[in-house]
């Protein structure tokens, strides 16, 4: 289209290379999507500031524990006694205390069991039959033997499923502390059959047990400024909300067991052999990994059966929980690992069944994790970091984590046995590295940045999965991360039903995608496409620094990210964390406007050229050879028969001259600018607003990339038209060329449209399809039986 001069004057108001053309009527969706969060966030106080930082009146409770626990290796049972010193650092007086009895989740009448809905019995999981039988026979739940005051008097208490309320003899005023003790016992669950967060694994071949013990002692529930007591029942998904404190724990086990635990071993000379002690001390002086217990020694130890017990003593400061592992099957390796200016004792404990994978990858994965995480948050604050192999798939505790992947029984694992040219899924190696990164990474979120897991799973899992992705990508090129890249979240984003990320942990639908993958992807998009790495990394690190050893809420995170970056992200939190819409932007319509210069020497030839571009109609083509009446009778010809509508006349020049005299020099210059005006219409089909990363291709082959901020949608979030002014002809525009926005439908992302090939079709078109390899046995590997 050729613009008239009056059109040009309007367009010339745009002083940049491009501008936005507003729709005639703007639906209200834009302002709604860009509305400030305001009422969705907690009102700022002097405890939690509007900036997202802890305020001058910030407080949190504290609980110190002294625990004596015996591991019954014959009956697979825990027998414990603890003394808790509870510090009321709140400004409130308390009349009772709440403790968590997580083992009661395994009682047959627990809310977790009773509140689940029925499955479709026509498709009953036959693979879960072993789980069923194990659970139906398991005598679960904690047996509280006594609750006593420091003076030994029995304390009134009430058990409400997974919570225990202790009545205080006297109200506990602000600033006071209360000391009391609890004795308890519970059976240890078979974690190989039930998938619990802790439990035992039995090795039939050598008749040994491996224990990973967690949620094993009555733990103080958190009392907070925003929630009061966090005493929501444990239903299985919402993990743990705990107070920080010091733990002194004495663990009595068979004397031939090796124990790994939260904290620092206090009595190595009493529990280790001289050889083990020497190696243990040497490991603390070196960044070179070495065995404290070798595979051969662990194998030999499997045959030991002692009736003697030993007590391992551990101390951990400023931790919110305590877990341990024990077995006579453990190999033990260790080395020092740097975290900023600090050095951390990184250790792995695993049976021979985990070899050779574990001695090669476990401790290096720990060291890599604390190195990378420290760069984005703070130096790892604890003295040890431990990875244990056992029946628990992946679970985190302060300084210690349980990680399940092992090689196959013949000792092989993926990425070793595969031929170099045969890229395949290397399950055990990357599975192990990823789970260790994730679980060790949890030391930062939520062990130190002590968020409320029972309420908000995403605050630790989402942030941790985000850093896990960064850490995986720093392991090696093309590390096969399963979460983090925007395109991997698309399938979830377009699925239904969904819940927003800001949903209570127990009510989340599609848990892993919602609380892990989506927030991790959102933060990756925020970092790479919206804030940029510098602004994001500074703000994210500020959040971690502000809330180190404190308990943040979502509002503290949202506010800090804005406070430290000067980027208004309310629209982003609203869309990604409070909503369930997805990104799908379509490049819908492109129009070209060119300037009518009114110069007849320019315009008339242009008009002729445009007309000449038109193909003759069918009638014109078929009449081409037919003689017309005028051809037969030339006398019928006149001025109009001969005139050329595209010839320039004196009148045309006069008109142009008149126009020139009316223009200022600036307007004349603009009129002579040889520019193309393209308007491109973008439709927001998915609803979730997004920046518009664009790639523009010109007729001369050159390519330009630019990003339009998400604020383009702030007035009309359904459709916007963008103006591009260029001296060159545009031959193509593509939205999201680097798949950075989680756009759901790439088929409508480009002009001209790019046909979308199905994955099935792409597979069939591969040069070396799998069916051809079937004829060549050299290309196979036989299954391991």
């Amino acid at each position, binding site marked *: 289209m050729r613009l008239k001069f009056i059109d040009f004057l309007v367009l010339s108001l745009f002083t940049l290379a491009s501008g936005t053309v507003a729709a005639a009527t703007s639906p209200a969706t834009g302002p709604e999507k860009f509305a400030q969060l305001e009422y969705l966030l907690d009102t700022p106080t002097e405890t939690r500031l509007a900036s997202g930082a802890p305020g001058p009146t910030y407080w949190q409770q504290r609980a110190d524990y002294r625990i004596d626990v015996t591991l019954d290796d014959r009956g697979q049972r825990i027998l414990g006694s603890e003394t808790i010193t509870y510090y009321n650092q709140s400004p409130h007086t308390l009349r009772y205390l709440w403790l968590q009895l997580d083992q009661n*989740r395994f009682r*047959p009448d*627990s809310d977790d*069991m*009773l509140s689940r809905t029925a*499955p*479709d*019995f*026509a498709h*009953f*999981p036959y*693979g*879960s039959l072993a*789980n*069923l039988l194990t*659970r139906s026979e398991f005598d*679960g739940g904690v047996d509280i033997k006594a609750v006593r005051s420091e003076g030994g008097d029995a304390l009134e208490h009430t058990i409400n499923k997974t919570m225990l309320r202790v009545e205080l003899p006297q109200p506990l005023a602000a600033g006071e502390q209360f000391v009391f003790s609890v004795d308890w016992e519970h059976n240890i669950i078979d974690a190989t059959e*039930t*998938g*619990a967060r802790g439990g035992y694994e039995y090795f039939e071949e050598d008749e040994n047990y491996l224990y990973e013990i967690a949620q094993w002692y009555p733990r103080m529930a958190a009392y907070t400024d925003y929630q009061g007591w966090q005493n929501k029942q444990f239903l*299985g*998904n919402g*993990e743990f909300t705990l107070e920080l404190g010091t733990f002194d724990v004495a663990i009595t086990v068979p004397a031939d067991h090796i124990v790994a635990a939260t904290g620092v071993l206090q009595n190595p000379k009493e529990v280790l052999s001289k050889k083990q002690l020497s190696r243990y001390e040497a490991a603390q002086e070196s960044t070179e990994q070495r065995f404290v217990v070798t595979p051969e020694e662990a194998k030999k130890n499997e045959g030991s059966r002692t009736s003697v017990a030993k007590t391992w003593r551990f101390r951990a400061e400023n931790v919110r929980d305590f877990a341990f592992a024990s077995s006579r099957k453990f190999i033990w390796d260790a080395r020092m690992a740097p975290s900023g200016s600090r050095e951390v004792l990184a250790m792995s404990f695993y049976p021979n069944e985990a070899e050779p994978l574990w001695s090669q990858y476990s401790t290096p994965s720990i060291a890599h994790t604390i190195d990378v995480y420290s760069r984005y948050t703070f130096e790892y604050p604890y003295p040890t970091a431990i990875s244990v192999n056992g029946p628990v*798939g*992946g*679970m985190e505790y302060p300084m210690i984590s349980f990680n399940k992947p092992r090689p196959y029984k013949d000792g092989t694992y993926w990425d070793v046995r595969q031929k170099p040219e045969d890229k*395949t*899924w*290397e*399950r055990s190696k*990357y599975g192990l590295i990823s789970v260790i990164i994730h679980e060790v990474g949890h030391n930062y979120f939520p062990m130190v940045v002590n968020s409320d897991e029972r309420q908000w799973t995403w605050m630790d899992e989402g942030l941790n999965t985000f850093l896990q992705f960064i850490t995986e990508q720093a392991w090696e090129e093309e590390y*096969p991360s399963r979460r983090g890249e925007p395109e991997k979240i*698309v*399938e*979830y984003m*377009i*699925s*239904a039903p969904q819940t927003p990320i800001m949903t209570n942990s127990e009510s989340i639908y599609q*848990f*892993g995608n919602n609380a*892990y993958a989506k927030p991790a992807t959102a933060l990756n998009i925020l970092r790479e496409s919206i804030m940029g790495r510098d602004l994001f990394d500074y703000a994210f690190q500020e959040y971690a620094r502000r809330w180190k050893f404190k308990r943040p809420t979502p509002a503290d995170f949202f506010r800090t990210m804005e406070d430290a970056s000067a980027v208004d992200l309310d629209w982003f939190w609203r869309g990604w964390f409070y909503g369930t819409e997805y990104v*799908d932007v379509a490049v819908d319509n492109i129009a070209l406007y060119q300037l009518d210069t009114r110069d007849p020497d320019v315009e008339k030839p242009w008009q002729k050229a445009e007309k000449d571009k038109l193909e003759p109609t069918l009638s014109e083509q078929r009449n081409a050879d037919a003689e017309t009446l005028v051809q037969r009778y030339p006398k019928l010809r006149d001025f109009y028969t001969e005139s050329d509508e595209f010839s320039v006349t004196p009148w045309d020049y006069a008109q142009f001259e008149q126009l020139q005299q009316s223009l200022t020099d600036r307007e004349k210059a603009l009129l002579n600018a040889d520019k193309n005006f393209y308007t491109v219409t973008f439709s927001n089909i998915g609803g979730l607003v997004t920046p518009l990363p664009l790639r523009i291709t010109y007729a001369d082959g050159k390519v330009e990339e630019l990003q339009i901020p998400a604020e383009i949608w702030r007035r009309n979030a359904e459709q916007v038209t963008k103006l591009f002014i260029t001296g060159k002809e545009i031959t193509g525009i593509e939205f999201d060329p680097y798949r950075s926005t989680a756009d*759901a*439908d790439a088929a409508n992302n480009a002009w001209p449209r790019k046909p979308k090939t*199905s*994955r*099935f*079709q792409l*597979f*069939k078109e591969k040069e070396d*399809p*799998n*069916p051809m390899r*079937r004829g060549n046995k050299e290309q*196979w*590997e*036989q*299954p*391991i*039986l």
Partner: protein
Amino acid sequence: MIGDAFPPAASRQRAGRTALIWGLWLALVAVPAWPHPWHTSFAEIDWAADGATLEVALRVLPEDLETALTWRSGEAVVLVDTPEVRTLVLAYLAEHFFLRSESGQTLHPDELVGMDLAYDASWLYFTLPAPPEQRLYLHDSLLMDVDSSQTNRAQPLWAAPADTLLFTPAQPELLLWQGH
């Protein structure tokens, strides 16, 4: 419209065993969800050029499929691209990924065209015979025998992205195709 539950499936019950099964299920649900769950699959489905076959590209977690094949075969199975494993995979698909036509016919995958096996995303490519003139219901209970929290999504490529089907243990069968 896509997304309706398949009506006949709901009526298949054995009333005499309900009490026993319910008791077992109570025991099962005491099992916690895996601490860090990630039990999903995703299928792209489109009509083949012949108009009577559906082409499926199915993404699974390789370790979950391996577990399912191991349980099914009774011996340890490693997911590699061999004729033996292909036979197992096709048999497993026949049980857990099939069509039910309006006339009551069950249509199983007939050819495993290939597999792309990788840690972050493993894909299976197979075809299903499908009479286009009939309403077709897709049954997708893949890997629900491995984990009760498994959810499967399927994207018919003739529909908008938002019309992805979501299969759960409580609803493993949904209307896929309206029929001509």
